[in-house]
């Protein structure tokens, strides 16, 4: 089990490691939506440790299990033309290996 690097309230940035167009760049199955890559948010909670879905998709064990976080983003930062309230939020589950310090 990989230890958690972040805690509730920490600022984190989602990696842009696998941009669009790199169809054959491994891993081929990721659970980090494209729209949230490169965005900065705040850890809402640590959900626990779970097998890496990118490895599970390759029929591997996905172990050691990775910390999974719920990360909270401000909608008006994710979408520059966001129409709604400035306080609106978006919360996304992201595995630790996709997160870095902003």
């Amino acid at each position, binding site marked *: 089990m990989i230890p958690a690097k972040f805690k509730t309230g920490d600022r984190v940035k989602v990696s842009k490691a696998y941009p669009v167009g790199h169809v054959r760049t491994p891993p081929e199955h990721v659970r980090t939506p494209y729209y949230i890559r490169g965005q900065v948010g705040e850890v809402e909670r640590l959900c626990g440790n*779970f097998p890496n879905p990118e490895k599970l998709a390759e029929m591997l064990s996905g172990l050691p299990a990775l910390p999974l976080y719920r990360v909270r983003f401000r*909608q008006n930062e994710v979408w520059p033309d966001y129409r709604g309230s400035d306080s609106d939020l978006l919360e996304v589950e992201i595995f630790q290996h996709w997160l870095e310090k902003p």
Partner: protein
Amino acid sequence: MKDQGNYRPLSYFQLMEISLRELLVEKGIVTDAQVDAEVEDMRRRGPERGARVVAKAWTDPDYKKRLLSNGTVACEELGLDIPALKLVVVENTPEVHNAIVCTLCSCYPRMLLGIPPDWYKSRNYRSRMVREPRAVLAEFGLVIGKEIQVRVHDSTADMRYLVLPMRPRGTEGWSEDRLAGLVTRDSMIGVALPDSPGKTA
């Protein structure tokens, strides 16, 4: 009447499903009876399971606390068997409205709400719900005032989500069973409010 039936060739995924199932049965990994039983189980589970959880939380403040801190354990407490479901319950308040989406596929708390509606799996809902949630909610007939914060939860990994809607006014003294009758599937996804008490009176 036209001289045609409604026969259509199987789609790619239908064909894949049948091929895979037949192979699994042929190789003795599962039996037809096991597949049928699983499908039957899935059909039997419906949103009334989630409604029970919500009604309990409305009538028992201690239960609500437990539900919000660990949804999985709180469901098991009610005898609701939810294997492998890591449940996060998000509470609607006068200041915050929550809604659930899975942009990557169609993750859904099936153990509590049954089979997801087709619109939940549609590209339209999945792509727009994170991008313009207020416009999508308005299309469901739910207009959220600007003074209320909209929180969208993208169910991207191992958690599953359930919205705990606000208890409707005018239901003071109601039993859990009666309250559960007001809790709709859509209100637990966050695209609607529970029915109003007048509707079932």
